[in-house]
């Protein structure tokens, strides 16, 4: 029996990912090179974002042997100016799978820092070379590691570790991996280009294996506000989640042993003193605010037992019978079970019931969820047919299910707090679009935050027309949490929404020169695959995308019709200029006159009456 168990335990996360690397986007040399670039660049950007540093990211790909034909080993290096990693964490961070700092409810490009380790793992498998990490976390010393991964044990093997003087913080990661740049090059260049559009505050350079240099300097100086970690939203929470939250909120009656008593004495400042029961209570009242929950519970018990520390040492608490308001305890001295009545009006009674039965429903809601105030909590309780003071610890399984259902259905909760999200913002997005496409028309919108299955999300979208944009549009640039999505376009929800649109309705016909930039920000993007390339069509997300696109399309339509009018006026003026002189010529001979009539007056008047063509129209909707 135990041998089977051991066998299971022997499969480390490294081994699991080794055998399932396709899932993470390392299926072939082309895709793997591209995925590795993504993982390291995104880690670099995330690290800078978290510390509010304007990122400088340098990406280099060099062929080990330029003469060899693809696929062949490449050295991929990504260097940033982020906070770096402390030397002690480096081996674990780069030498173990599932080690990371990105757990928690907030938006980041990567979820667990898994991808980078996967890339390292892939590199090691294909070239048997260690990863080289150079990190400076204090601005003085650079730690340089060469690390191999022990796949079976999921442990780092340090091949080399040296330290050097350094002047700047930052991290540089370099791996050697089998790749196919001749096939992946386009995608990687697109990726870098598109990343710089959605990260306008970053400066990104790319030195490719052919010696070409791609430089994308930052053109926005402000870094968008970083996301905060937040409490969950009641919509879309499930029974299991509530159960766990209740457990978190509940406390057991602490075992009152010597250590516990010692702790209470210390916290009350009575380590050396022995006081009477009444004095202890007075002291506790004074210090109440600074006492820990455990200590408060002990004091509350003492208040009903009416015992000092001496006596307390000789009993054991057996049970709290809240319905009958009785406290049972075992007296070691008499060797028998005894009980005392508890006064429900007492301050301490509340303390104890809270501890045993958990918080009342309203407190639970206001304290553990985002954006629920006392009024909403009471309203909800009425809606869910619970007493507002219902103790969470006393909920039956059926009541739990009812509560979970009601949380989903209640419509008066405020929209989810989007402070855990880090949208780019309408203004930088517009700036980016203008810089990249030099369009005749730009409009951007940031939708208010919404939620699907309890995860908040925000849609940002931009639309641009004309200028340097190629015809054959709409060209769609898809982003999720500031990552460009380049593969698996066909099944993406954004493209579905774009394709469903009847562009004729918006006066856009033929093969128009226009682009759509869509950015979905969420604490969890519902990717269809682990490769993170296409977003599933969740109803709530689709709806928000549709609303954003409709809003922008209407703006575009009004631009198009204004532009149409201006073009018409211009066309008309051209017609006048062409035909009026002809009419003048013919009527001169017809009427037997020698000199042509002065028709210039008409042409001049018409020119003056022409509406001015506005070269660019800006529409910013920022909510």
């Amino acid at each position, binding site marked *: 029996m135990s041998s089977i168990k051991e066998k299971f335990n022997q499969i480390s996360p490294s081994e699991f990912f080794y055998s399932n690397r396709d899932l993470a986007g390392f299926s072939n040399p082309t895709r793997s090179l591209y995925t590795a670039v993504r993982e390291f660049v995104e880690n670099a950007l995330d690290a800078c974002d978290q510390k509010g540093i304007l990122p400088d990211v340098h990406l280099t790909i060099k062929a080990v042997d330029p003469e060899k034909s693809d696929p062949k080993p490449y050295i991929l290096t990504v260097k940033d100016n982020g906070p770096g990693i402390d030397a002690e964490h480096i081996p674990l961070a780069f030498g173990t799978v599932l080690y990371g700092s990105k757990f928690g409810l907030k938006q980041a490009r990567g979820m667990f820092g898994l991808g980078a380790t996967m890339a390292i793992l892939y590199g090691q498998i294909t070239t048997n070379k260690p990863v080289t990490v150079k990190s400076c976390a204090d601005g003085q010393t650079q730690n340089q590691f060469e690390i191999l991964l022990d796949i079976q044990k999921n442990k780092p093997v340090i091949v080399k570790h040296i330290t050097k003087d350094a002047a700047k913080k930052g991290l540089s990661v370099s791996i050697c991996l089998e790749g196919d740049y001749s096939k992946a090059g386009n995608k990687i260049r697109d990726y870098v280009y598109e990343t710089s559009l959605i990260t306008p505050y970053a400066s990104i350079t790319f030195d490719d294996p052919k010696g070409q240099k791609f430089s994308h300097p930052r053109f926005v100086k402000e870094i968008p506000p970083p996301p905060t970690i937040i409490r969950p939203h009641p919509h879309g929470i499930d029974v299991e989640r509530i159960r766990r939250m209740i457990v978190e909120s509940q406390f057991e009656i602490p075992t009152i042993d010597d250590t516990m008593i010692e702790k209470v004495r210390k916290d009350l400042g009575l380590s050396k003193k022995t006081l009477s029961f009444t004095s202890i209570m007075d002291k506790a009242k004074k210090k109440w605010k600074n006492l820990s929950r455990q200590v408060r519970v002990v004091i509350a018990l003492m208040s009903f037992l009416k015992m000092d520390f001496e006596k307390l040492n000789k009993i054991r608490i057996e049970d709290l019978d809240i319905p009958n308001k009785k406290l049972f305890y075992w007296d070691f001295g008499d060797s028998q079970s005894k009980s005392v009545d508890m006064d429900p009006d007492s301050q301490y009674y509340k303390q104890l019931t809270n501890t045993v039965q958990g918080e009342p429903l309203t407190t639970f809601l206001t304290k553990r969820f985002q954006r629920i105030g006392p009024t909403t909590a009471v309203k909800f309780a009425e809606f869910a047919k619970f007493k507002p003071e219902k103790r969470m610890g006393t909920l039956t399984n059926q009541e739990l299910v009812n509560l979970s259902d009601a949380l989903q259905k209640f419509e008066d909760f405020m929209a989810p707090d989007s402070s855990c999200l880090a949208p780019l913002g309408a203004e930088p997005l517009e700036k980016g679009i203008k810089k990249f496409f030099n369009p005749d028309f730009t409009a951007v919108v940031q939708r208010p935050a919404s939620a699907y299955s309890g995860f908040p999300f925000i849609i940002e979208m931009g639309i641009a027309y004309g200028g340097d944009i190629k015809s054959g549009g709409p060209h769609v640039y898809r982003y999720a949490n500031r990552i460009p999505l380049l593969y698996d376009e066909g099944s993406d929800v954004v493209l579905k929404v774009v394709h469903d649109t009847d562009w004729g309705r918006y006066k856009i016909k033929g093969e128009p020169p226009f682009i759509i930039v869509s950015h979905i920000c969420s604490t969890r993007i519902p990717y269809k695959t682990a490769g993170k390339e296409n977003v599933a069509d969740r109803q709530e997300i689709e709806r928000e995308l549709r609303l954003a696109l409709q809003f922008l399309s209407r703006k575009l339509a009004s631009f198009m019709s204004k532009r149409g009018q201006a073009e018409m006026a211009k066309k008309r003026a051209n017609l006048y200029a062409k*035909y009026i002189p002809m009419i003048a010529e013919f*009527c001169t*001979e*017809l*009427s*037997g*006159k020698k000199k042509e009539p002065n028709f210039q007056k008409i042409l001049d008047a018409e020119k003056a009456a022409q509406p001015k063509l506005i070269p660019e129209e800006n529409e910013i909707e920022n909510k």
Partner: protein
Amino acid sequence: MKLKTSKAKEKNRIKELSKKADEKQKNVLEMLKGHGAKIYDDLDDGQFPKFSIPSRSVSNIVYDKKLRQYILGSNAALRSSRNSAQLRSFTQLMWLAFFANRLTKEKKSSTLRDVYYSSQAFGVEFEDQGESDNIIVDLEAVTSRAREDFHIFPEERSSIFGDLNIEYTIPGYEGKTMNLSNHPDGYSIGPSLTTAELVDTSAEIVIAIEKGGLFTRFVEEQVDKKFKSIIINTGGQAPRSTRTLLKRLHDEMKLPVIVLTDGDVYGEHIAMVIKSGSANAAHLRELTVPDAKWVGVWATDIEKYKLPTIPMTESDIKRCYDLQKDPRYQDGVWKKELDVFLKIKRKAELEAFSKYGLTNITDKYLPQKLELAKSL
């Protein structure tokens, strides 16, 4: 039979003729000048020139019982050079007036096709001849003059044969005379013939016939002599110049006009257009011979003469129903024959008489119809 005239009388006559032609030319030129001056003044005043043009839409074409032809109603459209959608056609019409002015002034003739090609030399664009033809009709409508007055003639020619003396009025031929029975192929009815003076004739009737083949047969069979007639080949639907000539033969020479067509609904309508004009030319007068008579081939003749027939096509039948709604087909022979055509749903060609011998039509049918015409 030619009239003998003294030399002085002859000279006088020529003078009169050219005076008459000059008079007409002067009128046309004055009228064009008036239109030109109005537009010139508008332009000079900084105004977009415009003019009103009678609407030629179906709703504005009405049948005038008094005139016994279709005329345009009172609806008129404003054509303005300010309207960018009309600017092009406005310019085309201006050019056409300008070109017609030159033609008239210099006494030169042109054809519909020639007008279309000439436009290119002036930088005026026409999509195709259809567009240019349409503008010519516009000019007719605005000026209430037939295009022939501006020396613009259709390409198609019909022909005439018979004892008729004419005297040319066109430049270079003024005073020259011609007898139209001198050449057995007949004479083509072109600008010079249409504008010629009709001097005299021994004929007592004009026979308009739909087909060239029968026209030739009639000449060979000396129908002109046998029935003292002038024979005109309309070549299907009679061109305007031919209709003008028919009218002049009727009005000026006091000759009755009879029309012989195929025994079908289209033939019947060819006769009707000669009699009372077409909706297409509702903007023009002086093109109809209200007294013209259609003598055959009637639907009733098919049975009567036991003519070989062919069945009517779908479009023949549809045409019958269309014409039943036409106010001109509400009574008399027109209505009667149309109803019979619809009843028997068969038709016969003029050549059907050949079944009974090549000359059967001239020997038997024509005399009977001529007799009948007197009572119509």
